[in-house]
């Protein structure tokens, strides 16, 4: 098992390098001149040249790339064009917001998907409802779900606040009540995805002989479901959780916007809107690295959990 893991890690490193380089080059190339982008179309050539010199955009691309990576490793991502504070200080607080939102949403989605699709009674009686919930999760866009929830629970009933973020300093209860609606909104889609994947795998597992053999031992239906079928059916869900975590390194863009949460997604959108190239670049690079890293983790987790791969 160790050799498999080491090999995957070693493969991930050149992948990260290649992808970040690709991203760097394509962003800078496609955006034309970052300086022109930041200053606007009708900036004078002297102003552009000045910005180029100041940020070093006039150097060859690969030099820029290595400098950026070298600085990034030290934690220096440059300065935000709009706010002039360091990019790192702009991004850092956003990470914890997105992380918390993503974490709760994924856990809720995964637990919900696995449990509702494993309970023997659930599968028979609740079956149509679960399928319905899946469908809603996958087809209702985040913004629609979020706004609908706000309309019902905030505007209508007044039970919950309409924004998603209250800092921990405002009190644990306040913080958590603010999180309820955004977490529900974000998890709905993943609940649908995880459910579909898990249910399909569970159906296959149920047909396998060891399930019948376990029943023949006198094991109860629910124990067979949770101790025999679930551990086998959950493997693809693990992969999907990893994939999802990777995707959410870019933030839950729509959910954060609907609920006005200061997360990475919203920062990305605002940096794009304000043409803040250094911030945009930093976040994009973060996403690429996050995706590769999470895929690697998911691979490793799968290897560890599946005894058939884990041992010899």
């Amino acid at each position, binding site marked *: 098992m160790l050799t498999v893991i080491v090999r995957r890690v070693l493969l991930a490193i050149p992948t990260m390098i290649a992808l970040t380089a690709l991203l760097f080059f394509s962003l800078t190339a496609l955006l034309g001149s970052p300086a022109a982008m930041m200053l606007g179309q009708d900036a004078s050539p002297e102003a552009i040249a000045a910005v180029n010199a100041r940020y070093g955009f006039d150097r060859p691309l690969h030099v820029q790339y290595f400098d950026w990576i070298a600085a990034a490793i030290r934690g220096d991502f440059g300065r935000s064009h709009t706010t002039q504070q360091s990019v790192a200080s702009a991004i850092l607080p956003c990470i914890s917001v997105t992380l918390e939102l993503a974490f709760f949403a994924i856990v809720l989605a995964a637990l919900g998907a696995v449990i509702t699709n494993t309970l023997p009674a659930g599968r028979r009686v609740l079956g149509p409802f679960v399928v319905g919930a899946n469908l809603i999760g996958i087809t209702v866009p985040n913004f629609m779900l979020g706004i609908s929830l706000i309309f019902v629970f905030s505007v209508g009933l007044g039970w919950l606040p309409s924004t998603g973020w209250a800092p921990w300093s405002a009190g644990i209860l306040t913080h958590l009540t603010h999180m309820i609606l955004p977490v529900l909104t974000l998890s709905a889609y993943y609940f649908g995805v995880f459910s579909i994947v898990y249910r399909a795998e569970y159906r296959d597992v149920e047909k*396998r*002989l*060891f399930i*019948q*053999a*376990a*029943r*023949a*031992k*006198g*094991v*109860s*239906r629910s124990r067979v479901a949770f101790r*025999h079928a679930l*551990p*086998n059916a959950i493997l693809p869900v693990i992969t999907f959780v990893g994939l999802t975590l990777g995707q959410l390194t870019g933030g839950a863009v729509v959910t954060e916007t609907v609920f006005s949460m200061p997360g990475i997604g919203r920062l990305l959108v605002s940096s794009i809107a304000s043409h803040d190239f250094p911030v945009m670049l930093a976040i994009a690079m973060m996403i690429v690295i996050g995706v590769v890293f999470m895929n690697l983790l998911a691979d490793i987790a799968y290897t560890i959990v*599946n*005894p*058939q791969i884990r*041992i*010899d």
Partner: protein
Amino acid sequence: MSALLEVRDLTVRFSGRGQVVNAVHRVSFDLAPGETVALVGESGCGKSTIGLAIMGLTGVARAGDLTGAITLTFKAGKRRDLMGLSDRAMQAVRGNEVAMIFQEPMSSLNPVHTVGWQIREAITQHQGASRTAADDSALGLLKQLGIPDAERCLRAYPHQLSGGMRQRVMIAIALSCRPSLLIADEPTTALDVTIQAQILELLKRLQAQTGMAILFITHNFGVVAEIAKRTMVMYAGQIVEAGAVSEVFHAPRMPYTRALLDSLPRLDRAAPGGRLPAIPGQVPSPSALPPGCAFHPRCRYALPGLCDGRTPALEMCDDRRVVRCLRWTEIAA
């Protein structure tokens, strides 16, 4: 001595997609304690379904699809009709009073749990033993079954063991609570011939030690001769001949049995004409059985006007010998 298991008029129907299929039709038989009976037939004749019906694992959709009576004499002495028991009550029977082993040793063990875990589960399910006590029992069982390095085997996962070892583990699980009846559904079919012989020897030895009865389900006559004293031949969901193995094999009365035996290659006798006589035609689909005798389209003794009209019933032809054929008296032994 009363029978350990009495099956009366067992009928299993599978309904789905608008079709109703009679997998098993009014099967009746007895099993005495400690006896080995072989249930033989080609695939699709319903023999596996009978095993599952006894265990209550047929998974039939509607209540009316499973009828008849399966009366078991429990270890404690009482006699109950298993068909009347709820699934909850059956959990106490499965693995404890009646155990079952299956055909595919790889697929019958859960790949994500160790062998030890799976044996322990059977023991704690019925005996509520502590973990160490269960482990000790498991170890003892594996040793009894002749598995080398039993401690290592307990900690191993199924995919690390060979086919023969896995089947022994299956047997260990089945025997862990000392059932009075073991249903063996083609346990050697997926195994190497040499391993096959070992497993059969093992089963005979265990039976002698524990006194349990075995219902051995197979399509292989060679295995029947090895392990069973009595046999029941099935065709299209019904028993068509039953009796002592020696008698049925040497003097089959039902044309189907005869044809089956004739089609087996034998070392002591050349096949007539140099070719093995295969049974013409195909096993009928359970949803489209021929009128009259189910075997008549393929039977060389079939009489038009008789065999395609009347459905034969099971008749006694000797002491403890039954046959289902309209013409058995006329057909020479």
